[in-house]
């Protein structure tokens, strides 16, 4: 068993070591966290990744804001209300959505947003594609958490004459709160590291851009992609540093998920 554990650890440590040793030194420079890449060419050192970090965070949060209500409410429907054909169909659709490859989600939104409506490729289009990927994750994790809530709690609430909707809002959801948050954050971590839809819908820019509805919005994955084939050392270093930044960002998110889950759980 220990052997298997160590074996699983090897690639993880290997990746971490490679990324840290090749790009770690850039992250120690405060410029990395305060400046963008504007005006920095592949042969010049310097600049930072704040434009990409902001883009990734903004797109991640917007995606979460859209997908969490949809996902949680779908899960509530499936667990608390759903009976019969409709529930089966919804459940089936969520399964299908889970299996949609990210590039297909990206192409679908491209076909809708750019080809059909003729809009520009903007940050919000990326969010829409990411929503397609995040909703099924949120639905599935929330569903599992709601199923874990003991039926006795619901019955006790009904016995006191509490209506069903109030039971869900006041009893079921709070009990499952920590699990739901963990699921949401894991889903968020997944979409923030997503690359395929970004390649199609979110061209890179070297400047800071915070407007979701106009202009190009840089993100960490596209920043990595931009210079990934570059051979000049400054650009190569920045690619590794951006990769490390993305790993750290998602690690932080996962940790936050754990902490919130622990603090927010119902006290025994």
């Amino acid at each position, binding site marked *: 068993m220990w052997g298997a554990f160590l074996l699983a650890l090897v690639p993880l440590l290997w990746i971490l070591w490679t990324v840290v040793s090749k790009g770690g030194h850039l992250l120690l420079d405060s410029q990395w966290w305060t*400046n*963008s890449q504007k005006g920095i*060419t592949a*042969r010049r050192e310097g600049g930072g990744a704040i434009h990409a970090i902001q883009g990734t965070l903004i797109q991640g949060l917007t995606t979460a804001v859209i997908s969490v209500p949809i996902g949680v409410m779908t899960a509530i429907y499936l667990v608390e209300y759903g009976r019969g054909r409709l529930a089966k169909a919804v459940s089936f659709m969520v399964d299908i959505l889970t299996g949609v490859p990210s590039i297909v989600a990206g192409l679908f939104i491209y076909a809708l947003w750019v080809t059909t409506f003729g809009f520009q490729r903007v940050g919000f289009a990326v969010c829409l594609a990411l929503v397609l990927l995040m909703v099924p994750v949120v639905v599935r994790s929330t569903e599992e958490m709601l199923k874990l809530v003991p039926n006795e709690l619901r019955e006790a609430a009904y016995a006191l004459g509490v209506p069903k909707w109030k039971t869900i809002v006041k009893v079921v959801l*709070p009990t499952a709160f920590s699990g739901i948050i963990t699921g949401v954050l894991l889903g968020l971590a997944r979409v923030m590291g997503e690359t395929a839809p970004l390649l199609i819908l979110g061209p890179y820019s070297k400047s800071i851009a*915070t407007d979701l509805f106009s202009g190009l919005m840089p993100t960490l994955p596209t920043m990595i992609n931009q210079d990934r084939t570059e*051979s000049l050392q400054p650009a190569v270093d920045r690619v590794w540093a951006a990769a490390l930044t993305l790993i750290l960002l998602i690690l932080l998110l996962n940790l936050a998920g754990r902490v919130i889950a622990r603090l927010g759980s*119902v006290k025994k």
Partner: protein
Amino acid sequence: MKIQRLGLVASVALVGSIALTACGSDSNDPGTSGSSSSSSAASDCPKGGTLNGEGSSAQKNAIEEAISSFQDECAGTTINYNPTGSGAGIKQFTAGQVDFAGSDSALKTVEKDGVVESDAAAKYCGSPAWNLPMVTGPIAVSYNVKGVDKLILTPEVAANIFAGKVTTWNDASIAKLNSGVTLPSEPIKVFFRSDESGTTENFTKYLKAAAPDAWTTDPGKKWLGKGEGKEKSAGVAGAVKGTEGGITYAEWSYAKDNKLGIAQIDNGAGPVELTGESVGKAVSAAKADGEGNDLRLKLDYATKEAGAYPILLVTYEIVCSKGKDAAKTALTKAFLTHFASADTQKGLEEIGYAPLPDEVRTKVDAAIAALS
């Protein structure tokens, strides 16, 4: 308990919003390398604005320098350029996704794959789209063979290698050109651009023009020879760097940056080494072509002039002759004027490009001034 939970969510939201509104800065120190020009264009700076371009990766290094120096000069302006390849650039331009396209070949006026590029661009623009030659540079036939520092190729032999007819380095046809060089018996590994590339088009145009018997397929953005595909210029150059026996065609800057061997080309007047001088000689022989302000650069690939390096590419910026938005047009004009200026063009020399000949530059300037 409920309050505590709400507090948690609120604190997460707070931290998130702080992270988002954290003051980032777009101001990096002005570049010290390359073309830090102080031309008089500064007085023509538009007030801010953003311009998005996409296309040729052959001109990426050149346009990055031009963007960098332009943004230093005109504070508040932002120019984005995504080097996704000439084909993608033109498609995004005609789909209205970007303000200008970078391409290694002028818009096609004949139908290809059901689309006439210049018509599609004109349809989007509502006015003819103009090709403005902006950067010229040599394509280096770059190789990685241990112990071979000097390699001479004729167009015929090069065409045979890239068509997969000559498969080993010690083939008699190569050995004949390189007497005194010990060539290994290892196989030749050809790498080509897997994306639609103007470099491929220019290179195959050269092969077709200089060695029509050996290279039989039509020139185009898609590679029709043999070999293994790699994405973008940096991809093929990197692949050759890491592969013993590899050979590819890439812009000079990529060959230089990867420290690859560069073949000398013998077009019939003796082998010519790839140097600034030999490129200058070939580029200055280029003629401006095209109607009015829609400029095309005509190269003589089959030139037999002594000391002129014949494999060149020209990259164009493709813009609407009548812009859709006055502010964008002003910014486009200011940026292109800066890009075509003698100072900027001169600065490109040290990173592996060649300045536009003066005669061509004058025409480009006139065309930029005529944009409206």
